[in-house]
């Protein structure tokens, strides 16, 4: 079970502001993913039971939105924007560099489960392009050297815990 007391409490607080049970679905899935890392078929059934919705209602929502991971992701989910503004500022090279460094292609997770790499569409930070998002955080004005520093730091964090 993913939905615990804390998630339930958050949903209760939101209920005061949202007129229907179904409107809790997106926030609930966000909370479930924050805890479990991804949305499994079991998670879909659990969300459906919690909101008294047919599981298909939940499934069709999960598959519609790109932020819901339908398979497990690494501890660090690296998402590089390659849309036009970032592309014009060299995003492709960054992706290439990351693929080389991590030894995986976009859409894949490293064997040790530390990193998942993905290309994403516009993150709405084009003025500081190129940009990427790792888990909840934005990293902007990227260059090869800035990227290297970020990744070195994450490597250290993943092997020793946060500094």
């Amino acid at each position, binding site marked *: 079970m993913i939905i615990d007391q804390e998630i339930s409490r958050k949903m209760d607080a*939101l209920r005061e*502001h*949202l*007129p*229907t049970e*179904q*409107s*809790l*679905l*997106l*926030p609930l*899935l*966000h909370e479930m993913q924050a805890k479990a890392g991804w949305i499994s078929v079991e998670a879909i059934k659990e969300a459906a039971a919690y909101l008294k919705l047919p599981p298909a209602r939940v499934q*069709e*929502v999960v598959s*519609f*939105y*790109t*932020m*819901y*991971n*339908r*398979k497990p*992701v690494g501890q660090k989910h690296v998402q590089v924007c*390659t*849309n*036009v*503004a970032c*592309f*014009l*500022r060299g995003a*492709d090279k960054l992706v*290439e560099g990351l693929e080389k460094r991590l030894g995986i*292609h*976009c*859409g894949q997770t490293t064997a040790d489960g530390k990193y*998942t790499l*993905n*290309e*994403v*569409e*516009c*993150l*709405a*930070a*084009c*003025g*500081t*392009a190129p940009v990427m*998002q790792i888990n*909840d*955080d*934005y990293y902007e004005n990227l260059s090869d050297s800035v990227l290297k520093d970020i990744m070195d730091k994450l490597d250290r964090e993943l092997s020793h815990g946060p500094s």
Partner: protein
Amino acid sequence: MVQVEKLLTQHNDVEGSHTIDVYRSLGGYKALEKALAMTPESIVDEVKKSNLRGRGGAGFPTGMKWSFMPKAPTFPDGRPKPKYLVCNADEGEPGTFKDRLLMTKHPHMLIEGMIVAAHAIGASRGFIYIRGEFVFETKRVEDAIVEARKMGLLGTKVSGTDWSFDLVVYRGAGAYICGEETALLNSLEGKRGEPRLKPPFPAMVGAFGMPTCVNNVETFCAVPTIINDGAAKFASVGTERSGGTRLFCVSGEIEKPGVYELPINVNLNDLIAHCGGVLGGKKLKAVIPGGASAPMLSAAETDVAMDFDSLAKAGTMAGSGGVIVISEDTCIVEVAARLLKFYEHESCGQCSQCREGSHWLARMFHRIEIGQGTEADLNAIAGICSNMAGQTICAFSDAVTGPALSSVRKFRHEFEEHVRLKRCPCKPEGHVPKHDHHASATL
């Protein structure tokens, strides 16, 4: 030189501008006080007189949109129907990043604008729909709502009046289409973000079936200055049909990218010069003047004012204010292929013209870019586009045709060269295209 007139972002650099104390010390929430003493009709009139037009993309006159809201709607059994106010903060049009700035630096300006708007249309609830990736911005706005509630500016009996209004933040989950207002409403209801057929318009049947008004972040943020300093002052900046300043988001190959608040009718050449010119002193090739969906302008077409009407006359659109600058060294075919890949990914799939059309176009442009395109591909593009534009539930399909048609029409020689050489002339000979654009799967 451009005239720098700031009405929204003059306090960008003030430390703590996002907190209620600093916001109030700079005159914040005075407009709310003033608005609560005004009748709803006079607020709507003031906004009409300001010539404020929606900053999300469509440029619809804001005061008029508010006036479409029914005065006292009722259910069939006579009970009063609640009215809702929604802020579209699903900033996702490629090239646009102003709402992020506003929510980061001035969340209370947004909240104040929303409370004034809610009073004007008689709304009892408000929803701020923020794109899911904006985790930091979401927290900022949520914290500001808590502050405002503590001060009695939100909740039961707003500022000691008999009227109650509260706000909640709703996070999106990664879908460009949710920036379309009816898709946003479906998403807010916990559904797939698929646009709705109109009519009925949201003013009649909106969020949760109730009369609803949806406005963009920047639109709401313009409301306090209009109420404080009067519609005339706002209208005095800009044109007769489009008042005020606009937050232009300048990106791409430009020396000083960023958000620039300037009169809405600033000349595009002046705007580019104001941002330091093309990156590295290169020559300009093209500009996308209003976010990805706006048809490109060639370098010969940039002597144009940036207001809605002037850009429409120039065959493009002011859209969301995202100005993407492209230099002479960049391959237009590759830029267009990127954009079409985006649309292919983001089409919601409801309408076959859009679902299939965006897919075909993305494949064709990619094929041409990597040297596998034919003359027949080039000639088919216009036909596909004519089967998409105006044929679907929402304007997404039309948006796809913006970059597709403008790039081929204005830079046809570049496309023809790709076909003739069977490779991208901007890449070194023997260059092997790394990705098939379908290879990079998303989760």
